[in-house]
């Protein structure tokens, strides 16, 4: 039995789909949110990371956490790993909660969170839109292909898998209703966070 809710978030149509079964599938279709196109919505990473706590720090005090496995569909899955989309291109990012599991462990705590373009930043958001906590996650799409040339010097390229998954550990006492997902972008002096999508996670 499926319940479907239609809502609007940031001008985007959001379909929240949940199931009463053990499997919870919530989809957000965030069309035209390019993973690499800088937009006015970009935020200061330093500001976000300093004003919002690490989920890891919040989970340390929690008795248990929920491990959410998020599927990220970023293109034609049948095409396999592809070179990085060029700046300015549009991409579709569909994030789906595919599993939800209770775990006793806590998320890893980072003493000095350091961003990289090879990561994504996941921000847990409450029902009223307040940002609750964040977690850095390695960009699961990335596949690095490097091999030495005749002189021993490496050459390589970065490929992006169009269909991947990643996990987020959300403390059970953090009332997250949504995860906002950002891609760090380095502008030469600081990281900006470009929103690339979100996914509803309310149980």
């Amino acid at each position, binding site marked *: 039995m499926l319940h479907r809710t239609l809502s609007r978030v940031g001008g985007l149509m959001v379909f929240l789909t949940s199931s009463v079964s053990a499997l919870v599938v919530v989809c957000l279709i965030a069309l035209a949110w390019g993973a690499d196109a800088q937009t006015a919505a970009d935020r200061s990473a330093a500001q976000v990371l300093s004003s919002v706590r690490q989920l890891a720090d919040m989970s340390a005090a929690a008795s248990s956490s929920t491990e959410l496995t998020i599927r990220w569909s970023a293109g034609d899955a049948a095409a396999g790993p592809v070179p990085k989309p060029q700046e300015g291109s549009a991409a579709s990012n569909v994030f789906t909660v595919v599993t939800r599991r209770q775990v006793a462990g806590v998320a890893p705590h980072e003493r000095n969170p350091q961003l990289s373009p090879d990561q994504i930043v996941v921000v847990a958001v409450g029902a009223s839109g307040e940002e609750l906590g964040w977690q850095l996650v390695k960009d699961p799409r990335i596949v690095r292909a490097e091999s030495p040339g005749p002189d*021993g010097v490496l050459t390589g390229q970065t490929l992006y898998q169009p269909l991947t998954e990643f996990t987020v550990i959300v403390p059970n006492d953090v009332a997250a209703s949504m995860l906002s997902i950002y891609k760090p972008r380095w502008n030469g002096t600081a990281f900006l966070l470009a929103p690339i999508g979100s996914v509803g996670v309310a149980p």
Partner: protein
Amino acid sequence: MTSVAHRAGRWVLMPLLWAALVGSATAAPVTMIRNNGSSANRVDIVVLGDGYTSTDIASGLYAQQVESFIQGLFAEDPSLEYQNFYNVWRVDVTSAESGVDHPELGVFKNTALDAAYNCAGIQRLICVDTTKVNAVLSSSGVAANARDVVLVIVNDSTYGGSGGSVAVASTHQEAVEIIRHELGHSFGLLADEYGGPPPPSCTLTEPSAANATMQTSRTLVKWSSWIAPSTPLPTPGTASGVPGLYLGADYCDTGMYRPTYNSKMRSLERPFEQVNTEQLVRRIYNWVTPFDSSTPPTTSVSIGPGQKLTFSVTLPSPHTHSLDVVWSVDSVTAATGTQFVTTLSPGRHQITATVHDATAMVRSDPSHLLTATRTWTADVADPPLTIITQPQNQTIPFGQTAVLSVVASGADPLSYQWFVGPSGVTAVPISGATSSTFTTPALDGLARYWVRVTNIGGSVASNTASVAVTFTDAHSTTDPTITTGLTMIKAVHILELRNRINAVRSGHSLSPYPWTIPPSAGVVIKGVHVNELRAAILTLYAALGLPAPTFTGTIAIGSIIRAQTIAELRNLVTAVE
């Protein structure tokens, strides 16, 4: 037998089916093969295998190949020096078939993680299905904080691997080099130190990575602390391990520089070199605090005065050096080492343990990752208010003063109030007598004093200090010195005074005084004896034409006679002798 395209399409079409599959997956056995501490304070590497059948696992082949790989991974710095900062978990993932896909050869295997060479048409590139990797990790129960590095080893000896959120390596003996390099990216956030041609394309923007820069000004180069003043910038030459500014990095042949001529981020079979090693050590300390634990477990302790306090810390241990611990009390360095025993003075103190890794591998640590502190607040109770030295009984000559003093211990400030009388009687406080010493007025007789000492914790009363006064009369042959409170007035004293009065009377041709009250040995001398002596002296003075003397106080009949009373009579007799 699957292909990347087939797999991908299937996941798009059947997410619910896959989710159900995950939910029912049998947990793969997990073995901790490097246990160096709690995952909360270690970098945890979790290793999964692909293309290993139950036979391969049961025979020990898989475990042996993982062990060999891990040994190789920790064979070079900084992982070698910091190997105790890592835990390693091995997940025994069982595949239906041995080996992995080689699509370029038309070889396909049914394996748990769908590892395949020739990923994206690149022969040496091995891809795995990260969805399946995540599913195995979740179902196997590897803790959420034990997946800092996820590594898949595939059962194939052909050289190959890949980097990314999941690092993949074959069992080829040189594949570990691929992983070291790729962990430089995913764990160390390091850039490639090679140039073009694209792809990837060169972007001439100052990179965020620690090992690439466009800066050519010595002071602005990120790794300037490693560059000798004599090293020219940009740096020519091909010498190994000489930090400088070498042209070509981050996919740019020009305009972008790397720290050393060659390193593992440029070529395999090379050391990471100084700057990359420094960054990797800093990244290790991103996950590992220099403290494992500390005692007391609470940050505040309360003890009684004089009690010993023991503080200790346990630390992760680098392979060849130790972390430094400095203890301070109220910001003053007090000791070094992992344990600190101290006795603190009463009051509140702050005890701090500062741990620092003074490794030569790191010269720049702007975020102070190699340093950590633990701070405790210790409240040491004040000692109970106690009188250490009581005011002492004294004997002073008539008309002199006595100095009484008390020594007390307890929480400052201490205040004092002296009283006249026996200890505890507060009827006669002495105005202005509010210090630890007190000077009595000139005394003509026995006096008793005590002092009450007070602090924030309460009050304590001293013992009674008696000040006795001595009276000396040179003309007396019986006890010329008598002391108030000490000398019992006896018949001899009365008889001597009678004799001396009569002697004076005789000297002035007066008849002896007619004494009517007969004192004798053993009789208690009372007021009647004194009053008779006073009458005799008045009579004598009158006979001699002298003014009548005055006597101190009235002596009641039956009173016990004090020394000063007798002394007064002696003085009056002496005056006319």
